């Protein structure tokens, strides 16, 4: 993947690949695990107990704003307990064991999305448990935090974050009519807000006639042009931004798959249970995109595709540049999982703690011009503030620095460690400040 730089003048370039195959639908697994937390949302409260029998599509847990986790199988709730997110944080999750026969909850379909009015669509999405950026008036009293922020622009990304993944772009090829109809529905809900659909450049021409009312943004095949955060920044008219700052400014990023799924679910009147995932790695001649139930264990998917995983292999949720390694094949597919990548033990890449030789290749390739080598050396020796000032705070975590480092240093990890150490320090400072304020208040 990627090419060495040519003649020393060009940066190594990583291109998004454009292979396509058919989308393979997997039979439902015999058990699923569903996480009860999602970044940027209020916590889910379980509405079922262990031992309960549930139907497919039944609400298992919901937030006060009625964003819900639905059963993706018909069967029994076997446990409500700890579960790990792809990046290793412990949260709560619900486990279901499938029954022999699948029974769905009653559907309440919407006839034609294009004819519906905004309130109808917004209410419909709430009924189906979607966390849409638009909330009905009667719910607003129950909502806190980010979910209340107004929406000024919506970016719908039909591009994948990393090479080797074909999920979002498959929506344009395999689910084109559903997607086009769903974008029309988004446009209705968005009202005055700007709707930007981001697609690979080659799709731009053919889509412009099908999506006449929205702004189309075409991006090149260069990996870094496909970075969602930098795309948000482009739409916001700034160089770089944090996802949180984008939301505060009224920018919402929706993936093409989520948009198409929302439209399909509204039409069918059933909650979302499926997810597209690209599986690639050892034993597969070409990556395969599969449609599977949310909560499916990775192990089940690999088994269905005939991939065998052995000791020393690496299994990633995500792609090669940003993916999170998993230690357990029972880890579930979540809404954020676009890919499962399997690396055989011999091809596993091991970064090492070798000293920096100061060659400067990391800084040269950095898309946001961080002095990566310097920042990483600061972070390596615990100088968090200095690392932060050298640019770590601007890091978009694209992974290119670690990809090119000839000393094989874990550069992205150093950036992340500086960012998280700084966040921890800020949190504890805020905490102690709050304590002092509380102490002062109680003294009075």
């Amino acid at each position: 993947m990627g090419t060495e730089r040519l003649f020393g003048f060009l940066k190594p370039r990583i291109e998004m690949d454009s292979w396509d195959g058919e989308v393979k639908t997997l039979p439902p697994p015999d058990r699923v695990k569903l996480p009860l937390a999602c970044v940027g949302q209020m916590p889910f409260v379980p509405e079922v107990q262990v031992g309960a029998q549930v139907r497919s599509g039944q609400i298992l847990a919901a937030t006060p704003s009625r964003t819900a986790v639905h059963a993706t199988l018909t069967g029994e709730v076997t446990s409500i307990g700890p579960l790990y997110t792809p990046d290793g944080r412990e949260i709560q999750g619900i486990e279901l064991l499938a029954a022999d026969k699948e029974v769905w909850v009653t559907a309440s379909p919407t006839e034609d999305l294009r004819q519906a009015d905004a309130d109808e669509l917004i209410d419909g999405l709430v009924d189906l448990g979607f966390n849409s950026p638009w909330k009905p008036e009667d719910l607003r009293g129950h909502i806190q935090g980010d979910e209340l922020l107004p929406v000024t622009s919506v970016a719908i990304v039909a591009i994948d974050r990393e090479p080797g993944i074909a999920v979002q772009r498959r929506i344009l090829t395999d689910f084109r009519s559903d997607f086009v109809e769903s974008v029309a529905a988004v446009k209705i809900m968005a009202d005055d807000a700007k709707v930007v659909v981001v697609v690979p450049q080659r799709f731009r021409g053919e889509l412009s006639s099908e999506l006449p009312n929205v702004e189309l943004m075409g991006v090149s095949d260069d990996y870094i042009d496909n970075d969602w955060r930098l795309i948000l920044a482009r739409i916001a008219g700034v160089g770089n931004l944090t996802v949180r700052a984008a939301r505060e400014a009224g920018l919402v990023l929706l993936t093409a798959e989520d948009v198409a799924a929302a439209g399909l679910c509204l039409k069918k009147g059933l909650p979302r249970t499926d997810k597209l995932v690209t599986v690639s790695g050892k034993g597969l001649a070409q990556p395969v995109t599969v449609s599977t139930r949310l909560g499916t264990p990775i192990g089940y998917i690999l088994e269905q595709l005939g991939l065998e995983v052995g000791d020393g292999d690496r299994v990633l949720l995500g792609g090669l540049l940003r993916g999170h390694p998993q230690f357990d094949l029972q880890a579930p597919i979540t809404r954020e999982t676009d890919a499962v990548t399997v690396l055989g033990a011999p091809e596993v890449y091991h970064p090492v703690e070798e000293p920096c030789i100061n060659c400067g290749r990391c800084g040269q390739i950095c898309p946001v011009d961080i002095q990566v080598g310097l920042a990483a050396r600061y972070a390596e020796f615990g100088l968090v503030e200095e690392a932060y000032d050298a640019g770590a705070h601007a890091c978009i975590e694209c992974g290119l620095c670690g990809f090119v480092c000839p000393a094989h240093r874990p550069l992205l990890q150093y950036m992340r460690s500086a960012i998280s150490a700084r966040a921890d320090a800020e949190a504890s400072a805020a905490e102690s400040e709050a304590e002092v304020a509380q102490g002062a208040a109680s003294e009075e």
Partner: protein
Amino acid sequence: MKRPPLLSVAMAPHAHVGSTVAEIYGHQALALLPAAIGGVVLWGLAGLRVILLTVGCVLVFEWLGTRLMKREGSVLDGSALLQGLMLGLLLHAGTPWWLVVVAALVMVVLGRCFFGGLGGYALNPVFLTYAILLVSWPARLNAAAHLTNRVLSFPAVEPLVAWRTVGNGAVESFPLGSLLLGQQIGGVGSSMVLLLLLGGLYLVLRGFIAWRVPLAFLVGMFLTALVLNLSDPANYAPPLFHLFSGAAMFTAFFVLTDFTTGPVNPWAQVVYGVGCGLLAVIIRTFGVFPDGTIFAVLLMNLAHPLIDKIHSPLIAVEVPTR
């Protein structure tokens, strides 16, 4: 029941472009080979003896040093090989064996290990070593004095020494063509101007060194010499004489481009190179030592962290307006 597989976990990215440190230093050493061969052709077995002895001693000392520092394996990273070869090419063919051993020891211990090895040193180990030798054994390093028992087709005196002693009149006895072909008294291979240039161009084209540094250095040297020469053609040597004599070309492509002791940001590299070229000509013209390049490099090495503060601005996180 079969136990689940034990999976390997590590942080992203999980792919690598394939470059290694050994590859970079290996190619730099490879690019020095033409100059080394040229040196052996010119100086015969005496030249080969110095090169092999230096490289061998450096590798042995490096092996011992890394073992003492508990950083085994780094002897294979190629940087010791490269710097051993550089030191070997810098010493003249008549260098006594004990001085070579001392030089290797000084370079490995003082130049590299004391600072923490590869990536840690602040001064280029090769030039630091040569500077220490130059101050400690000036007579032993006088190439012309030790290479007298030879029949040479060119003047048996270092061009820069001749120029400093006699003045601009000496320049005429060193035609540019023969300087270019390495027909001059100096280190075994450090004056093989054309061959070093070829090796350097190979490195630039393959992207193993930053192209701005050598270019800026040569331009800086040329312009400074040109200004001096234009101001007083009778006293100051013409610019090309500076570029083609002594260790100028060697410095441009192999010493200044050392990553650890130089800046990484594009404009900082330009300032670094130009500054070094300027200092080199000034020290050559007004200083005590004829080849001031060595001291110019060491001074610029010290200033490099400061120079590297010249960098393109970060694409910083901004707060968009609503």
